[in-house]
């Protein structure tokens, strides 16, 4: 089956000369959830805006369901729903009217049953006659999702759906996304939380400075990113790793005052218990222990380093 979204060498240079997208190529299969991970200013929003028609590309091409986003924009855009990063709603309009407006804009006739179903699904039905300015932040974001879904899109873009949303709502958002996936919608979401990508995505793409550094199955990437370091502070410095511990992935650090053990936190057995037992057996005195997981920033640095090598 052909990918539902094909992005081919898509480029965007803003008028000021800023190169936000430096040739992004990516295929997205129907029904999958792809998370685009990247720091602020990486080009995540520009990529989404360009695919949706908010921003005009300066090079490359993209198709949605085989329809070119520029030449055949009507067919392409009809298939897309967008939940923008910024909450933007007309303050004085009722929830249900703003949802109906979007359906009409996308060329669909009035369908009260569908509107009710979507509003109920997003726990907004009781608020349908409330002006949007009277809603809480989380509700406003759900209104944006309702608007994005009401024309029955096959591809849904969620630009940082949980930015500024509290923990409980974030979990609710993840559940909503899972339900949408179950209904067959293809979802592309951006985030800068690794945890969020992990919770929702099938595949994860890492984008930085307008370039897609990698796209991988979540399981493979998590394994790669899931490495942790255990630092063992020693009572007395060592000149080398004792021979009895040669079976472990150990390095000496801090001029012999610490041992660093690298392990896979996702693995069934981390080897930490064995290591500690071996250390005691070898008579190495411990002063302190600490573990450290690579932050997203460090992962980026690693990725850039690998690409350069």
């Amino acid at each position: 089956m052909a990918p539902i979204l094909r992005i081919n060498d898509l480029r965007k240079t803003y008028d000021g000369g800023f190169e936000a997208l430096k040739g992004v190529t990516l295929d997205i299969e129907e029904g999958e959830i792809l998370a685009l991970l990247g720091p602020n200013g990486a080009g995540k929003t520009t990529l989404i805006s360009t695919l949706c028609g908010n921003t005009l590309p300066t090079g490359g091409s993209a198709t949605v369901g085989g329809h070119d986003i520029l030449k055949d924009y009507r067919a392409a855009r009809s298939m897309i729903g967008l939940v923008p990063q910024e909450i933007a709603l007309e303050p004085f309009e009722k929830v249900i009217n703003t949802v109906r407006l979007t359906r009409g804009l996308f060329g669909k006739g009035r369908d009260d049953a569908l509107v009710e179903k979507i509003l109920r699904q997003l726990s907004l039905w009781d608020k349908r006659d409330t002006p949007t300015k009277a809603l809480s932040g989380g509700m406003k974001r759900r209104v944006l999702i309702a608007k994005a879904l009401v024309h029955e899109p096959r591809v849904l873009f969620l630009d940082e759906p949980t930015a500024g949303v509290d923990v409980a709502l974030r979990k609710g958002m993840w559940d909503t996304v899972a339900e949408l996936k179950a209904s067959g919608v293809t979802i592309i979401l951006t985030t800068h939380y690794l945890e969020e990508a992990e919770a929702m995505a099938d595949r994860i793409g890492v984008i930085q400075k307008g370039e897609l550094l990698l796209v991988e199955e979540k399981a493979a990437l998590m394994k790669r990113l899931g490495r942790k370091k255990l630092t063992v502070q020693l009572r007395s410095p060592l000149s080398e790793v004792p021979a009895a511990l040669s079976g472990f992935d150990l390095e000496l650090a801090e001029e012999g005052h610490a041992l660093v053990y690298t392990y896979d936190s996702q693995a069934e057995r981390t080897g930490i218990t064995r290591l500690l037992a071996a250390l005691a057996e070898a008579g190495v005195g411990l002063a302190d222990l600490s573990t450290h997981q690579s932050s997203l920033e460090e992962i980026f640095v690693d990725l850039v380093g690998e690409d350069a090598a």
Partner: protein
Amino acid sequence: MNLHAIGAIYRYEMARFFRTIFQSFLSPVISTSLYFVVFGTAIGSRIDSVEGVSYGAFIVPGLIMLAVIQQALNNAAFAIYFPRFTGTFYEVLTAPVNFLEVVAGYVGAAATKALFIGVVILGTSTLFVDISIQHPLAMVAFLLLTGISFSLFGFIIGIWAKSFEQLQLIPMLIVMPLIFLGGSFYSISMLPPLWQKITLFNPVVYLISGFRWSFFGAADVPVALSLAAICGFTALALGVIWWIFRTGWRLRS
């Protein structure tokens, strides 16, 4: 043609109008009544008649034009500026619509509101003066074309404006003087000879003259010229909007 989109925008914009129907209705009634008290009664009692029409009746077409032009400009400019200001315009930009559909929705609603106000003023004025309309079809045509063309102009202002202050700038600084100097309250023949020539550069003169002709059968400039001027203005405004959507100027980055 995405007719659903045109209808959706139109209904959404009209809903805004109906939310404030009281103000929308009351303010033109009050301002028109004031104009009649000041110009029609206080000043008009000292003017016998203009071109064979009582002064009170003579200013009716001008008053209607004044309101229709202002309402069309402001409604259309606000309708397009407000979603840009609140950020909700993204959904129009990402919808499967072309520029004509967007314009038809927004301008259609703005023109409808302007025409509604025009009719309200016409109705109010009958409380003060006797009015007969000699060419009703032409009157409706002039009203429609004026409402549409100035809504188009307002649409452009709403896209051009970067702040609420700028939104008011052109209507206040340029359009208002043009309307007042366009013969809303006087006949061009009442001006000194030099000003009679200069005033012909004011496009509003052609609108008011043609509109007044539809009431009283007398015009400052030929009716065909009036019609050509307003059609030309409409075409120009549409052309500018077509260019805006083609290039994405102030709409798409």
